[in-house]
């Protein structure tokens, strides 16, 4: 099977793929985008989370061919050029990782959450992050980092003109 996939804004032509190959293994083995991790292969842990048209998906159970014609974003494409995504910044500020293996998946899942819900409550964060395991137990810091990033993003998107109008 030949495929064209759009990943992090770049088109990739892929040849001779197995019909059923999950996106995860195309990313890792064919494209050497190894930030997306294999943890369980069954959709249970979230280590393999990427975005498909902005939605968080588990790439270990998503057939690569189902991603054709869609916009795929991986952890390698989350930053805006040399500027960290606020989640990446918060992750470093709060020293979230222990082993770090789950963290790309955690960040990608959180990024999709903040895209849809810029100011999630702690309960909404918990619910959205339920599919992402952290065996090292960094959950408290993950939650705090998501809250910090949400705050940063709120400030960044703060539009003074609009605010003035509202105040007036």
């Amino acid at each position: 099977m030949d495929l064209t996939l759009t990943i992090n804004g770049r088109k990739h032509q892929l040849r001779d793929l197995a019909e059923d190959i999950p996106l995860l293994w195309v990313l890792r083995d064919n494209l050497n985008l190894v930030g997306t991790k294999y943890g369980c292969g069954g959709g249970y842990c979230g280590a393999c989370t990427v975005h498909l048209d902005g939605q968080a998906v588990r790439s270990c159970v998503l057939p690569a061919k189902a991603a054709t014609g869609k916009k795929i974003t991986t952890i390698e494409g989350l930053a805006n050029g040399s500027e960290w995504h606020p989640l990446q910044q918060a992750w470093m500020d709060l020293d979230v990782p222990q082993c770090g293996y789950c963290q790309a998946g955690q960040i990608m899942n959180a990024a999709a959450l903040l895209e849809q819900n810029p100011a999630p409550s702690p309960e909404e964060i918990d619910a959205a992050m339920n599919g992402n395991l952290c065996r090292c137990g960094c959950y408290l810091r993950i939650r705090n980092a998501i809250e910090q990033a949400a705050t940063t993003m709120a400030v960044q998107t703060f539009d003074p003109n609009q605010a003035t109008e509202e105040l007036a």
Partner: protein
Amino acid sequence: MRNVSRRAFCKLAGVTGGGLVLGFHLPANALGKAARLSGEYEFNAYIQIRPDNTIVLAAQNPEVGQGVKTSMPMIVAEELDADWQTVEVIQSAIDAQRYGRQFAGGSRSIPTRWDALREAGARARQVLLEAAAEKWGVASGECTTRDSHVLHAASGRSLSYGALAQAASQRPLPKTVSLKPRSEYCLLGTRVSGVDNPAIVSGKPLFGVDQVVAGMQYAVYHKCPAIGGTVKSANLDVIRQLPGVSAAFVMDARGDREDLQAGIAIVANSTWAAFSARKQLQVDWDESSAASDSWRAAKQRAAELAQITGQQVIDKGDTTGALNAATHRIDAYYSYPYVAHAPMEPQNCTAHVHNGRCELWAPTQMPQVAIKKVANLLDIDESRVTLHQLRMGGGFGRRLMSDFVCEAAAISERVGTPVKLQWSREDDMAHDFYRVGGFHALSAGLDKAGKLLAWRDHYITFSPDGETTTRGGNQHTKLFPHSKAKNTNLQLSLIQSAIPTGWWRAPISCAVAFANQCFIHELAVAARRDHGEFLLELLAAEDHHSDLVSFEQSRAVGVVKEVLHRANWQHGLAADHFQGLAFYYSHAGYFAHVAEVSVTDNKGLRVHKVTVVGDVGPIVNLSGAENQVEGSVIDGFSTAMGLSLSIENGRVQERNYHQYPLLRMRHAPEVDVHFIQSDNPPTGLGEPALPPTAPAIANAIFAATGERLRSMPFTEAGYSLA
């Protein structure tokens, strides 16, 4: 180079392109108490100062999530007065001659290197300072150091370490150096973000699974689901025809369980091709020498053994007499199951065996052992095996074993190309070296005043041969509270088992703490005493027969007192909230936890908060330390609540995370961490905060419900996460 001090065994050299490299090999007498206790005297450090004033520090020990790649270089940087912002940390080569023992286990990295790393930093600082003084023609005593610069306050001059490095490399190294008092620390004890964090959050290759080697093939290794089974026959001709597959072959067992087990290797041009081909495998296994264990049967057998007397391990005083004479006699039977390590990164290793050499890229906690084992397996000299240490996606003790490294090497030996071996999650669950299950028949007697008169623990564990205890199932004969009772009786019974076991985070303590710290609470309840007061009295009581060499009573009492204070013990709780307390000492760390829980009518458990007080001496990286404690508490809760393996017919039934319910974010309790930073040498933090977690929670559940949980996991008693 001239006049280099022989006594300090230091190597000092300019490097091409300028700069200074210091390799240190410090003598044994430079070491402090913690290191002496461990019996390890080989140390090294590596510092490179570049002309542009960046400072490269090598972290010698493997990084498994315990944070040593950050904390160990921090120790050097503190004494060196290096500007942490311009420090670059590299993972050192694995080289026993240069670095001594390199491993990640037993919470030993910090205590064994503390003095050597500080001295290395201090010596480097001293030569830089002297080089500056000479250049300026001033006394070195007039100079100071800060942020990778030497300063001369009187004249307002300063020079960067980078500018001084070449001159410093020509100077003799000081024979002795003075180390900073703690009050002068600027970096140690602060919160420092992990050195690999930028790479982690941007998805850069770091871990074992991320390794790519030119010409590499991908392999899976399929072993018998009944542990130890061998291959009779398999449809290998079919497998070899499958897309992408280049080889499929049977390998016989070599060495022992930790070397190479029998199985079938499939080598292909991608991970997915290898995984897919494996699904088509049909194997006729020979299970005649495989495990046939059943957890259900083991539980029955243990219950029978508990009724009879075991082998006497310690017998002091007259325990039976004292139990009979006691005002309160309490008997209880505790148990806990086998559990898996289940680190997030499934086992993997890349190997290239060629021309009588072997190159390995391995996420291993024991790189030097892996080298030995592979050399043995391939029958080549150890010097012909090179291991590149890679970051590990968790280990918790699993990666102390080298089986996956041996498998990769054996497969590469056979096919001749570099091979990346990738285990599936299912492999990881089915072929772990598990935390052993166990049983304790406990009895204790108290006098009228509620003082401990007698303590009996009949420990029932497993044995591979019917004679020796299995790994991680050996009895702790030296632990609190045995020594506090005049009459102590420890017994041991063994159940034969072929299930391989290993070291799981805080080995032995992770399970035994549950039994005996809950039982101590039972005693307090029987004596109608406050648990905190009872525990403090017990800890402070005279030791009747202690050979617990390193246990310091005052530190134990200290953490318990402090946790009662910090958790506001039994005061101001919400009406439906209840507290439980536990203390444990392991890996030279003193920890006391108070868990605050609520339980709904249908046994829905919510752990709201766990307050932790630990004493591991001075804290190196406060952020890393707190992270370790938070993780340990979550791991301890996760395991106590819901994790167990139901072994049947020699097979572990749980195959993936859906059957092995690790805790998720929504159920993570708040963890309130406090350290008593005593003046003792610092000790490690990967493990000792875990053991008190399960008993603190179980004791809180008792307070809430009156139901005494004597078996893990708690889900088996009908509890669920609320």
